[in-house]
């Protein structure tokens, strides 16, 4: 594994190795000295073209816990915002000797492009509406921690699948790991060829909830209403929002996940967001361990 661009590139063994490694590394976080010397002398560049303090901080913390040197190359206030092309930025990073580049970009495929222009490992931290592999991996990690296994797990992914990189990465990864995914959304927010994806599709959240072990809520942007994806935010949350009543219809062991940031009152009610069955903060904590695992596996080899 040289880059992590898509969860579709991972086979079952590779994905499991990442999760197992994350489990081991999670124990580091519990120690008083939280640092491992593994990536000492290695340089990791965080190249963020989109504002995402959460994801950037998570990667930064992960790299630092492995003793890597971290450079934050954010779009704002750098040559990037002055119109420098991705290729020129790549050549700059190359010249700096970056061993790994973590890229977040609004264009689908930006991480793929970058991987052709640098020698180091490229880690896709979210590209447009394509993929967000480490999010899916940390989601799978969280599910495994909470529910013990992924094989046969019934996972409902609810919301704006069409524009969601989290959904794409999750469908591919969870299927590889043996879970059964059902996408739940109004037809306007599903890709036209979703019937060819390795998952089930439903327009009816209430029908899916009782048969779900995991319900993953995706963020829905209110602006979608203006593009006629749905008539109103109220109608959306009436059909696809998760509130306390719906939570009650889920099996007792079932958990609620959300990649964050949540829009309370749209796809998730405050009551559900604050319930102990909601794993949002746990996902954040797991994100660091999982990203440590990925950095370790990509860059740790001699």
């Amino acid at each position, binding site marked *: 594994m040289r880059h992590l661009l898509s969860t579709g590139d991972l086979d079952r063994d590779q994905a499991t190795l990442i999760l197992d490694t994350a489990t081991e590394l999670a124990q580091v976080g519990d120690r008083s000295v939280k640092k491992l010397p593994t990536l000492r002398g290695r340089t990791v560049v965080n190249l963020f073209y989109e504002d995402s303090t959460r994801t950037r901080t998570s990667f930064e913390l992960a790299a630092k816990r492995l003793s890597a040197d971290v450079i934050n190359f954010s779009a704002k206030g750098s040559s990037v915002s002055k119109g420098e*092309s991705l290729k020129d930025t790549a050549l700059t990073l190359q010249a700096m000797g970056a061993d790994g580049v973590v890229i977040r970009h609004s*264009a689908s495929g930006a991480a793929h*492009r970058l991987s052709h222009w640098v020698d180091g490992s490229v880690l896709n931290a979210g590209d447009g509406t*394509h993929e967000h592999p480490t999010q899916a991996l940390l989601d799978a990690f969280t599910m495994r921690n909470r529910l013990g296994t992924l094989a046969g797990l019934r996972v409902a992914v609810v919301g704006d699948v069409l524009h969601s990189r989290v959904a794409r990465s999750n469908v591919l990864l969870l299927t590889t790991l043996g879970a059964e995914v059902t996408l739940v959304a109004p037809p306007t927010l599903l890709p036209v060829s979703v019937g060819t994806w390795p998952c089930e599709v439903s327009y009816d959240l209430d029908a899916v909830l009782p048969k779900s072990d995991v319900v993953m809520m995706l963020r829905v942007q209110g602006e979608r209403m203006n593009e006629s994806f749905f008539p109103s935010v109220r109608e959306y949350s009436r059909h696809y929002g998760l509130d306390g009543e719906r939570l009650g219809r889920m099996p007792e062991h079932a958990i609620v996940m959300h990649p964050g940031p949540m829009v309370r009152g749209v796809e998730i009610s405050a009551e559900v967001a604050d319930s102990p069955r909601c794993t949002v903060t746990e996902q954040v904590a797991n994100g660091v361990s999982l990203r440590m695992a990925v950095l370790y596996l990509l860059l740790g080899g001699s």
Partner: protein
Amino acid sequence: MPDNHGPYLIRGARPLGGDPVDLLLRDGTVAQIGNDLEVPEGVQVVDAEGLIALPGLVDLHTHLREPGREDAETVETGSRSAAMGGFTAVHAMANTHPVADTAGVVEQVWHLGREIGLCDVRPVGAVTVGLAGAQLSEIGAMADSAAQVRVFSDDGKCVSDALLMRRALEYAKAFDGVVAQHAQEPRLTEGAQMNEGCVSDRLGLPGWPAVAEEAIIARDCLLAQHVGSRLHVCHVSTKGSVDIIRWAKERGCDVTAEVTPHHLLLTDELVEGYDPIYKVNPPLRTEEDVLALREGLADGTIDVVATDHAPHPVEAKETEWSNAAMGMVGLETALAVVQRTMVDTGLLTWEQVADRMSAAPARIGRLDGHGRGLSESGPANVVLYDPAAPVDVDGTAMVTKSSNTPFRGMTLPGQVRATFLRGVPTVLEGKNA
């Protein structure tokens, strides 16, 4: 070019793929066709054994970028590129800077083409002022100008307003003009990046549905028939479009259509690596579409092959997919791609290739002196093509100013060896003469 005006004796070429004959080109015409012609005094002999002779090719759709984007192509480099591809006439689209929406701009382009003299450059006039889709441009003035514009198009943009399209179709009739529509429903393609389907959904790129093309074609065919005008459909790319055009022709609509070489060969699977070299408008479609396009070209539903030659500088393609420019160069590979997709597959004879790439486009563009076939006393516009000379495509080795060829790295089956424009070689031995 003082000493290459000929005459030329082409020895042993196979006209339209038939039996070998000699052709004598003199004073701009094919003076004599026959076996073992004598070599008159002062005649230069071109050995054409094994080569296929076709009438000079005519392209209904190129972007020569001048005026305005001379960094990508000029009329001169575009003419060279055309000659290398076996073309003796090309239509230059109107989406230049400034837009070719006045007699002044079309005459400028036309004059440039004449001065360079490597290929007849026929400017296309914009249908609407500034391609803005709001107000008809001076179609009559462009038709009456020295450039004698007969093809009008907002190519790059669709004339999406149904009433404006109706008026354009009606108005152009007075000048024997044709409206060439870039069929793309704008609302259905806002932000669209590639063909909408399995691949776009997987890649997370906003999709460009086939219906956005097909709906406009269906509407325009009905409009053209209603007002009794000629309609030409640019770069047809979907199976549904072929079906609609076939249906429209059956019911008597005066519609013609073109397909590009890249849509005859390439599919959207190529987008998988996000390399914008494959980004084009209309987008690469599916295998099913490719096969339907070939079938449509074979049965005459699609009348012509047009390249939609669209040069772009390197930086316009060496970027993220969504920031990259749409378009591909195509003049120098067109004939070889048609051989591979249509001739080698048994779908077209060379005679039919001459129709689709010379006679039919000349007829649609109302182009005198081109597309008249190879006959005695006909114009000496001739291309000699070697169908058994495989070439590894390399954009940087092309004569176009740009190098954005999607066939890069592929092996195509043949090469143009010589092109004659009115008896004067523009290409000899595979090089610009």
